[in-house]
């Protein structure tokens, strides 16, 4: 890179309570480059970008913008409007689109005066058309955003940023909800835009796309910048080591002889109120000593499939057999009795009862067990003993067994759920997005526990959007798209990606 810097972050720090989310981070961005910002969850990536965009006020440090003629100007901190005026655009991890408005209204939002009684839509459309031509990002402008696909919404989100005449674009995990093909297309567009002088910072934790599409990589850990390397010199091992501070563990998966089936689903059909709540003619089986991976972009029926097997929805037709016995759908307690351990998708909402204590949450599924009660009365001491045993065995850290479960961090809530599920020695484990939002350490812990359960003889259904996770853990892989399941014959990224997009592999 021979070009000049456009943005200088100098010693930015930000604390939330006793947590130092960003600790004296300094960073430079050069004209026309793609800088990848890498780090585990909670490393400070989003905090740093929110300071740049004025959503957070830094405790100390400064930000400078260098204009076309080379003059450095300090940016007014903590003021989104100043950041927009300085040419910084941000595409947030969670879409910031109003779904009741069409794309054009979303893009024009905030760029027009409130006093004017007339809107100049045609001028806006001309400008957007030009941006679409230059960048290759295309999305329908006259359809309510709520009816667009996630890929289209992502493009609207970027067009919205570009419409403000940005020269620095920040993308926070832009590919989290895209298929691999959509993601590749997005990066092609971004590369095209940098040719016209746009500078891009993107946050990701997908090493593959970071290596393929960035010029430079900055790695954050525990709120500090721990390394900065040119992408050409980097490889996955090198970056992973920087991110977690040590070599990542590679999962050791033993070859095992699979046993008899523990779950058989036969022609299950559910007609929900919308497409994403429906399943059509789903058949699958999971055997002992086996992990069945179910890949797919979220919203294609994963949630309703998991709910059906957990007994939370009623099927229209079809059978579910656990351990060879037919079970009723829509009968959760019976399903737990039959030996199904559930790791729900939304761990905060469905996995724990937040207001109840950690100890209560640990025993909530086996209240009838003689270990914790006799004649209907709970044995407090036994529960406490049970809880402290499990807490140390599963490394659940937090303010103690009597504290409300909602006070635990996401990773510790997941460990609590794992403790509850695995201690019941389930025949079948239903893990729906078990590592979503967890940092690498906690995610590796979950993966190891699942492999351990497989070793012990459980059958596991692993529903995940993370292809790497599916590929490294599963014995067999199925892909869910539009409420239908298909077996993947070959286990490679390309094939699975196409199947996830609904195309014939």
């Amino acid at each position: 890179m021979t070009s000049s810097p456009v943005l200088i972050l100098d010693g930015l720090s930000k604390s939330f309570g006793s947590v130092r989310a960003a600790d004296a981070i300094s960073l430079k961005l050069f004209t026309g480059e793609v800088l990848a910002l890498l780090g585990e969850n909670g490393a400070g990536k989003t905090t740093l970008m929110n300071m740049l965009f004025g959503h957070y006020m830094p405790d100390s440090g400064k930000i400078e913008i260098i204009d076309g003629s080379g003059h450095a100007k300090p940016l007014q901190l903590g003021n989104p409007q100043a950041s927009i005026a300085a040419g910084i655009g941000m595409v947030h991890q969670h879409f910031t689109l109003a779904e009741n408005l069409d794309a054009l209204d979303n893009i024009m939002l905030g760029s027009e005066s409130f006093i004017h009684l007339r809107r100049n839509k045609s001028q806006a459309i001309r400008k957007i058309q030009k941006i679409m031509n230059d960048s290759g990002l295309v999305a329908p402008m006259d359809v309510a955003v709520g009816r667009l696909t996630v890929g289209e919404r992502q493009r609207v989100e970027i067009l919205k940023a570009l419409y403000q005449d940005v020269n620095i674009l920040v993308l926070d995990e832009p590919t989290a909800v895209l298929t691999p093909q959509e993601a590749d297309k997005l990066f092609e567009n971004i590369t095209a835009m940098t040719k016209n002088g746009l500078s891009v910072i993107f946050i990701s934790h997908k090493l593959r796309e970071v290596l393929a599409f960035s010029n430079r990589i900055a790695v954050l850990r525990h709120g500090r910048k721990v390394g900065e390397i040119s992408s050409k010199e980097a490889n996955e091992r090198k970056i992973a080591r920087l991110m977690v501070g040590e070599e990542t563990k590679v999962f050791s998966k033993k070859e095992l002889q699979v046993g008899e089936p523990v779950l058989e689903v036969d022609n299950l059909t559910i007609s929900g109120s919308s497409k994403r709540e429906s399943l059509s003619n789903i058949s699958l089986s999971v055997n002992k000593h086996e992990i069945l991976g179910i890949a797919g972009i979220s919203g294609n029926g994963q949630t309703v499939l998991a709910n059906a097997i957990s007994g939370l929805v009623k099927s229209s037709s079809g059978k579910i057999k656990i351990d060879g016995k037919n079970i009723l759908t829509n009968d959760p307690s019976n399903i737990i009795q039959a030996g199904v351990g559930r790791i729900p998708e939304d761990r905060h909402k469905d996995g724990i009862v937040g207001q109840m204590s950690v100890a209560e949450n640990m025993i909530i599924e086996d209240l009838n067990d003689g270990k914790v009660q006799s004649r209907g009365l709970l044995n407090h001491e036994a529960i406490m003993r049970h809880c402290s045993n499990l807490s140390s065995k599963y490394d659940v850290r937090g303010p103690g067994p009597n504290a409300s479960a909602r006070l635990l961090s996401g990773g510790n809530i997941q460990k609590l759920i794992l403790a509850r599920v695995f201690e019941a020695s389930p025949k079948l484990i239903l893990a729906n997005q078990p590592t979503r939002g967890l940092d690498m350490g906690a995610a590796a812990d979950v993966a190891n526990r699942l492999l351990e359960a497989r070793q012990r003889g459980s059958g596991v259904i692993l529903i995940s959007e993370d292809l790497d996770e599916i590929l490294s853990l599963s014995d067999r892989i199925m892909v869910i798209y539009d409420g239908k399941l298909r077996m993947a014959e070959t286990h490679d990224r390309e094939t699975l990606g196409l199947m996830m997009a609904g195309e014939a592999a």
Partner: protein
Amino acid sequence: MIEIFQILLTESFWAASLRIATPLIFGVLGALICEKSGVLNLGIEGIFVAGAMAGWMAVWLGTGLWGGVVVAAIAGGFFGLIHAILTVTLGLSQHVSGLGVTLFATSVSYFSYRTALPKVSSPPRIEPFRPLEIPILSELPFIGTVLFQQTALTWLALFMVGLVWYVMNRTGLGVAIKAVGDNPNSVDAQGLSVYGLRIGAIVVGSALMALGGAFLTMSAFDAFFFGMVNGRGWICIALVIFASWKPGKALLGALLFGAFDALQVRMQTEVGAKVPSQVFLAAPYVLSIVALVIAARRAEYPRALLTPWFKGQR
């Protein structure tokens, strides 16, 4: 049955429908603006009382009728601001705050009335708005009586329907209000103030609600009575859902309710001997519930309705 058709053919029935609908039009539009921005305003019932009381009192003290309208709007805006601070700035429960504002506004209004007129048994009367006679048009058969013998406040209400529709659908401000009621982060990300938009919408919406109350004391009647609002605010909350948050449908809903009410009064005199009067009194509410059940199933709520938003928490 025949009686109903005879009533439907009279001029006075249609004129009464529009007159009864007028306060509801103001109220529904006000509630619509608040809810479009994402905040339910259950203060409406009390704000009606405050508007009725403040407008009438101002006229009685000598501000003139239009002065009274302005005072009513300011009173409504004031109680709206209380609701806005509690629900938007502090992010408290919109239900609890709204009911609190209703109790507070009602009590303050009754209290000021009693303080100003401690010894009066029958309330003093003011000279209310007169029907707006328009040469030629007012003499037209049927239409002349129905449309052109209404007071200025009814015309203002109808004008407001058009104005609210225009602002909501044709201006940048309307786009921003709809956006803040769907996903406040969309507004925040564009550098606009979520708090500013919501507080503004609640204050303006509440001012409109107060005009609904003012119509009662300054046009429909000529004095202030205890209990005169009589649930009209609550009807508006239901009508907004019936109208699916659209100003045109809000007008339709208000007119429909007005027509039910006008019809029941006339039915009482026609067949009152055979059927208890309470049946007729209840009819508009029962029919409203039926209409609501049919319409509400398809209603698309503003997604962020009832959800407080805090800066920096995402």
